[in-house]
C-alpha cells in the first residue's frame, strides 16, 4: 500500500479501503484460522483487526512498515487476547467449507473422502499441538507463504530469529506428522499418509 492509497482511506474513500481489505483479508483470516482452529473466532479476529487498523490509521507509516505485516501483527495480538480469555485452545472444526468441497470432488469414493478428511484433521491437530511461537512461523511462512521479512515484521523479531524458529518448527512438525502416520496407515490401504 502506498501513501496515496493510505491518504485516500484516511479521507474516507471506501474503494481504497475495500481494495486493501480484499488484498489482505485472505492472509489475515488464514493466519487466524490456522492459529486458533476456529472459523467463528478467526472471523471475529479478522473483523477486529481491520477495525483497529482504521482506529490506528494515524500511527501507520507505509514507508516504514508493510501493511500486511502490520495487519497480521494486530491479528496476532487480538488472537492472543482471545486465547488468554479462553485460556485453552479448542479443537479445529471437523471440516471447513473448503475441505468439504475438496472431499466432494467428482471421482472420489466415499472412502477416499473420509480418508482425506481424516488426514487433514490430523495435520491440523499436529499444527495446533505446536508451541505458539513455532505454530506462528509455520502458518505464516509455510501455509500463508508470506515472505520472511514480512513474517519477521509481523512477529516483531529479526529475520535470523525467524529462520531459526522455522528450522526448529519444521523439524518438530515433521516428527509429529511421522508419529501420526501410523494412525492413517490403518485407514489407508496404500499406506501413504497424504
Amino acid at each position: 500500500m502506498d501513501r496515496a492509497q493510505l491518504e485516500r482511506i484516511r479521507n474516507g474513500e471506501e474503494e481504497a479501503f475495500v481494495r486493501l481489505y480484499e488484498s489482505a483479508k485472505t492472509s489475515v483470516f488464514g493466519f487466524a484460522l490456522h492459529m486458533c482452529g476456529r472459523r467463528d473466532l478467526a472471523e471475529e479476529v479478522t473483523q477486529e483487526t481491520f477495525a483497529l487498523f482504521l482506529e490506528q490509521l494515524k500511527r501507520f507509516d507505509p514507508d516504514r512498515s508493510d501493511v500486511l505485516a502490520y495487519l497480521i501483527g494486530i491479528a496476532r495480538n487480538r488472537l492472543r487476547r482471545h486465547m488468554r480469555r479462553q485460556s485453552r485452545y479448542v479443537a479445529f472444526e471437523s471440516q471447513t467449507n473448503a475441505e468439504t468441497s475438496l472431499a466432494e470432488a467428482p471421482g472420489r469414493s466415499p472412502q477416499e473422502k473420509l480418508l482425506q478428511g481424516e488426514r487433514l484433521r490430523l495435520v491440523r491437530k499436529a499444527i495446533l499441538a505446536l508451541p505458539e511461537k513455532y505454530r506462528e512461523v509455520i502458518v505464516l511462512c509455510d501455509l500463508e507463504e508470506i515472505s520472511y521479512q514480512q513474517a519477521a515484521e509481523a512477529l516483531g523479531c529479526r529475520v535470523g530469529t525467524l529462520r531459526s524458529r522455522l528450522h526448529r518448527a519444521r523439524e518438530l512438525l515433521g516428527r509429529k506428522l511421522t508419529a501420526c502416520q501410523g494412525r492413517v496407515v490403518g485407514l489407508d490401504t496404500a499406506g501413504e499418509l497424504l
Partner: protein
Amino acid sequence: MKCTEFAKQLYGQGLGLELPEMEAHAETCPDCRDRLAAERIRRDALRRLSEASRPAAPSQECDHRVRAAFAGFRRRQKEQKAEGLWWPIPAKRLVWGGAAVAVLMLLAILPLKLRPGQRPATSSSVSGPIEQGSGALKSVDANQEKPETDVETATDYIAMTPCPDLKCLDGARNFRVLLPESTMSLFGLPVSGQNGRRQVEADVLVGADGTAHAIRFLRTATVNKIRTD
C-alpha cells in the same frame, strides 16, 4: 556432507530434497534418513492442507461487518471535520504544547522554590522604591520594604493515648513546646542527625485530665528574608 549442513539444507527456504549430496548422506546416516523422510511427509502434508484450505476467505457476513466498521470510521471523520477537530492531534503539536506548558509551570514554580539566600543578585541588589519625602531622594533598602513572614509547616497530630471517639480531647488545650529533635524519632519521623542538640517546636494537646493526648511537630521557615549573616 555433515549432519548440520544436511539439516540446514533440509529446513532451508524452498530448497529441494532431491540433491545428490543429501541422498548420499542420508544413505550413510540413519538419523538424517529419518529426518529426510519426516520432512517429505511434512511438506506433502502442508501442501495438501494449503490446497484444501484455499481460498480461506472469511464469510460475507464478516465482509459486511468490516465494511460497517469503515462506514463508522468515515462518519467519525466527517463529524470531526465538521467540528473543526482533527483527532488524534499530530504528535509534533502535542510535543510543542507539552513543552510550552512545562516551561510555564517552571516559571511559575521556580520563584517559590528559590530560597531567599539563593535569589539571584539582581533581585536583591536592585534599589528599592524611591521615596519622595523631605526634599531629598532616599533609597530604601529592599529588606525593609519586604515584610518577613514565617511559613509554618506541621505534621498531622499523632495520638499519644488511645482515644478512639476523641472525647478525651474535650476541653483540651494546646501547648507549644520545644523538644530535642531526637523526640521525632520516637514517633517514626525522620531526623536530620546533623546536630544532636537541635530543638524542634511541637504542639501538644493536653486534655482536661492533664494528660498529653496528641502531638504534632512544626517547622518554621522564613521567607522574603535576605540573610545578612
